[in-house]
């Protein structure tokens, strides 16, 4: 018993010893955290408008471009909703851009924004070896034109975006769910969708499928 007490005491001492160290560690962490922040502004010093790709796109299709961003060597165009197909046709066919490959289409949900949905297109050129990102922002219930006429692979990517976020694509040849069952309710990658599925779904499933081991 005495030994245990001693141990407890010694543990307590150790804890007390560690406490004063904690603020120092925090400071160190802060310094560390501060360091990359100092490094980060070095990047945006690149003047976006001098990049040949940005120059070319702004020159020809400038009316569709709302904003250009440059982060970690990647160019992002914020595109007006109505210009996306036109711009994609241009990017694919122009001899200076030649984006012949649609890498993917992504949907993102930002519930706090005025236009809560964002559709992101990643393009790649197999001949010029460069990449670009296009973004379209959409309000709730707003549709965006499908880029299917430009790259046929968009059919599946856009179906996935529709499935996961409920963003609708106009003139899509076959817009339906792809990963989830056809009778699924809701769109899981929306931020308001519960992580463990709709309430009661899990319990109902267990009741229906695991009758013998039903202990819930």
């Amino acid at each position, binding site marked *: 018993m005495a030994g245990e007490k001693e141990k407890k005491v010694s543990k307590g001492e150790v804890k007390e010893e560690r406490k004063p160290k904690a603020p120092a560690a925090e400071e160190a*962490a802060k310094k560390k955290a501060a360091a*990359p922040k100092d490094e980060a502004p070095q990047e945006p010093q690149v003047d976006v408008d001098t990049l040949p790709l940005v120059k070319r796109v702004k020159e020809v299709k400038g009316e569709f471009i709302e904003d250009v961003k440059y982060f970690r060597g990647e160019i992002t165009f914020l595109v007006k909703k109505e210009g996306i197909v036109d711009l994609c046709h241009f990017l694919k066919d122009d001899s200076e851009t030649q984006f*012949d490959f649609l890498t993917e289409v*992504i949907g993102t949900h930002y519930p706090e924004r005025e236009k809560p949905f964002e559709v992101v297109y990643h393009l790649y050129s197999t001949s010029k*070896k460069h990449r670009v990102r296009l973004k379209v922002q959409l309000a709730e219930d707003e549709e965006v034109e499908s880029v299917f006429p430009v790259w*046929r692979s968009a059919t599946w990517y856009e179906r996935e975006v529709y499935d996961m976020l409920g963003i609708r694509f106009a003139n899509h040849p076959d817009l339906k769910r*792809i*990963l*989830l069952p056809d009778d699924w309710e809701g769109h899981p990658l929306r931020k308001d969708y519960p992580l463990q599925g709709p309430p009661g779904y899990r319990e109902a499933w267990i009741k229906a499928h695991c009758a013998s081991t039903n202990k819930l």
Partner: protein
Amino acid sequence: MMEKGLMDKGSVEGQVTEDLMRDTLKTREMWLNMGPQHPSTHGVLRLILALEGERIVDTEIVIGYLHRGMEKLAEAKTYPQFLPYTDRLDYISSHAMNFGYVLAVEKLMGIEVPERAQYIRVMMAELTRISSHLIWLATHALDIGAMTVFLYCFREREMILDLFEMACGARLTTSYFRIGGVAHDLPDGFIEQAREFCKIFPKKAQDYDDLILKNRIWLSRTVNVAKISGEEGLNLGLTGPNIRGSGVYWDIRKDEPYSNYDKLDWEIAVEHGCDVYARYLVRLKEMRESCKIVSQCLDILEKLDGPVMAKVPKVIKPPEGEVYASVEAPKGELGFYIVSDGSPKPYRLKIRAPSFANLISVPTMVRGHMVADVIAVIGSIDVVLGEVDR
């Protein structure tokens, strides 16, 4: 079978029979369901084939049977916590999946990975490529009817899995990579054992060639089957060995060299046949090239000492921003798009799975072919459903 008298138009019975035949024996498309539980669909893939006789006129692909909501899960996990999930994407090439993920996070945070870790990563990724291609060759050949190749390939794959086990204790779901390096250094004896593999593998690859490269049945099942041009392939999202089988010189390891691929000597495997056979040749050549890369890495690793982990903060909190990083996984372009809001968890993580994109072109490839060719086509594009459904 029918008596002549019955078919006589003049008789009442003949008229009735003719009407009956017109109504019931119409020539029409037949819909055939293939999968999801079918040995040659390599997982749970369902195809609905519209047939005219035995020719395919249309195909619908039904996926999602293995959907686990990885992207939703990622939003609830910290960056290091999500790493083991990436193993479960393409579960037969987990190192490559880890690679794509850690590269994306490192790009986001601006971490420099130590040289030794870079070489270990490249070596592991290439060993994974060999093992993944071995499984592909084994199952593809088995689907078409060559049993021996299957046994041979699994024998060599076992050697690679033993190496993985040595390095990280696991054979399939390795989780060996870390944000900033690898989990720990290579154990003693690893380099010797890996060298042994590199020494015997080219001979074994020759054995596979001897078995099927000029085999008449193999040729008649693969040559000129499921042709797709490079341009059409790109339009349909085809990447990796599949697009290289259509004569497109595109390998991310060469075109946008990540890690240390630009310091190593190897060639892109490209074929111009555009058919199932060309994709087979590409993968066989790729295995040999990967073996070359592994032995070069071993030479360097023997002399190169140093840390295998960069200095990474304990809590990984990338700055606000978004990045896309991609690697050449055994199946094609694997990309991770991460949106960070400055918190320890990704705000949005999207996985660009190569198998998912490669499946898009299957209906185009199989149109006009026989039912039996569907099996050769699915084998040739090498899908893993863990990655398709995520």
